[in-house]
């Protein structure tokens, strides 16, 4: 069973085509990088997978289920079992680090004890133990990045989507966090769809890549 699949997906914004007849398949546990020049539709691919957009034509499958088809989102984002790291991180500023992570766990209806265990385990994995009660604004850029990654992973999603998560960091920090993402993938074995325009990140993160050009698949490797 594939983790994520696009079958002939097209998407237009107003009259401008963004994706044209895009098909690909990502297997469970795979690391795939979606790359291409600015405006080629990379982020649109992630938003279609997440459920923030519905394709005008074609089908999107997540975990083997058709989640959106021919302009209709059949399954809402909250039922797709996905995690996502946004380009601007989108950490909730009014919630502490622990509350940011706990939001997704609460939605799963897990008991308090299990939630606490998972939360501290995930914070330990991203080296943020002891930061539970800190608000995101008090953390450094790299720490905020790690909170965003931990939040995406803590509910044990089927796949994690990352939208240029390291684009605003300096080379050293980017290198360190790339290594951390790879370590977490090795430990947890999640499916990773990673959008970037950086060749260095593409080389390090991606086992396989999907190259887009003006909304068309321009190559898969």
């Amino acid at each position, binding site marked *: 069973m594939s983790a994520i699949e696009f079958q002939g997906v097209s998407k237009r914004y107003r009259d401008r085509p963004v994706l044209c007849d895009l098909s690909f398949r990502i297997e469970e546990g795979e690391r795939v990088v979606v790359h291409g020049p600015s405006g080629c539709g990379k982020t649109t691919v992630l938003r279609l997978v*997440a459920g923030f957009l519905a394709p005008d034509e074609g089908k999107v499958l997540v975990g083997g289920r058709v989640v959106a088809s021919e302009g209709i989102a059949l399954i809402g*984002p*909250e039922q797709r079992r996905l995690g*996502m790291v946004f380009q*601007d991180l*989108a950490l909730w500023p009014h919630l502490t680090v622990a509350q940011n992570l706990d*939001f*997704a766990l609460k939605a*799963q209806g897990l008991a308090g004890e299990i939630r606490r265990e998972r939360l501290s385990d995930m914070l330990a994995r991203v080296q943020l133990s002891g930061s539970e009660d800190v608000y995101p604004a008090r953390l450094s850029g790299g720490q905020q990045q790690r909170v965003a990654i931990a939040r995406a992973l803590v509910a044990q999603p089927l796949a994690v989507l990352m939208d240029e998560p390291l684009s605003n960091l300096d080379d050293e920090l980017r290198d360190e966090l790339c290594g951390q993402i790879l370590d977490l993938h090795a430990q947890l074995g999640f499916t990773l769809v990673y959008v970037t325009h950086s060749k260095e990140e593409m080389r390090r993160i991606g086992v396989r890549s999907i190259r887009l050009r003006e909304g068309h698949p321009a190559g898969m490797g």
Partner: protein
Amino acid sequence: MDRVLNSKRITLWVAVAIFVIAGVLPLCFMLAASLTSAANYTATLGNPRTWGLLRSSLLLAMFTTTLASLAGVTLGIVLAKTDLPLRSVFAVVLSMPLLFPPYILAVGWYEALGRGGLLSQWAGSAVGEATSAWLFAFPGAVLVLTTAFLPVVLLLTMTYLRAVNPALEQAARLSSRWPAVLGSITIPLAAPGIVLSLVLVFLMTMGEFGAPAFLRVDVFPVASFTQFTAFYNFGAATAAALPLVVVALLGLAVEQRVLREKTFQFGWGLQRDCEQVALGSARTPLFLLITLTSLVLVALPLGALVLRGLSLAVLREALDRAGASAIRTLVYSAVSATALSMLGFFLAYLIHRRAVAFWRSIDAVALFLFTLPGSVIAIGLIAVWNRPSTNWIYATPAILVTGFIAQYAALSTRTILAGFAQTSPSLEEAAEVAGAGWFRRVREILVPLAMPSILVSWAVTFLFCAREVSLALLLAPPGQDTLTARTMTLMANGSPELVAALCLLSMSLTAVPLAVYGAARTLWCKAV
């Protein structure tokens, strides 16, 4: 370089001086005047009636704020965050009461529920008697003021909800349904705006004079107003105003605390696509419910006014008796809005660039003056300017314009500040590096960049000046009254038809120029 720095500094200090003279000085004079004799305080504050009125005002403000917040926040969420059909139309219709002074709505409700009103004609005089008795009492005042101030909550809730970064909601949508996302993420992020709206409604109700006076509900502002107009007891009037000043200060403290600690949600002008909740099967019932709400809260009182006053003969009489006041209102409001926008521009610049050490105080004092009842500001201005040497201000419409500047500087400053927040300081710095002096930068860079917010500031302040009652009643020189003051005066002995026609004239005075402004702005935006 020195000359450039000096001209900039001088301009900003002149703006500060105008603001201090118009707004701060009157408060200082008022306080000093009331302290001349302790008898003012003992007589006024020792009177049980004073505290009874204060209790009544506080209760009125609490009930009005509670109802306006329940209705306004709910409607704000539905209109800002869902795919309800015609939501922009509903937002405009439900905001209409903000265009007129609350006493016009009171007259409208009287025409709907009072003796001889629409309901009485339809259901019989016994029903009319009962609803009239209900209207001319505390519940009626709550109804009228809730209708009048609901738009404040609605508009601020909508604005703050739309300013929430959609990515924050999308991050939550990956694990939760919309109700949980709204409850845990969206509404808490918009909470500062909602709290601000509640503080404003509370303080505006506390200071409201016209509607309770029309409905014969005794409230605190009447005490200060009566001491001044009936007995001309200046010291007692200022002492009676003191509790209102204290309540306004408390409200301001709440606002400052809530907003200063939670400024994370501001995302004005980033043109983000707002996330929308699909209502699904709830769409039709909600549409019908909001249609009904709009009909009852807005169309009913305003429609009743139109039915009563829309006759050619009565409108002609209204124009004969108050036409000159209407023209004066337009002129005073336009002059004041222009002055406020100019002052607001420089104060907003000063606050945005933190050009003086006390920039935060200017913002806070301006907001404090906005939340003070007009009668308090008017009494302060009279204390400053009512002397032979300054008769050129006190005995002319300049005193009214000064009052408008004091009361509404916060509106123009904050509106233009929002415009500055969307532009980078480097745009001005680039002009400075290119050799442009201060005035050239203002003329060719800063004003054009802030022009949309300057236009909004002009429209908003024009509206507030045109609908102002307390300042107009107390400050307009003899023979120079405004339409709102003239209508209040004629209410005492005019026929219901004439009063309704005067209210319609007042409504058109604000609605027509704003509609023309809105149409012109839309055309200009399309052309650009």
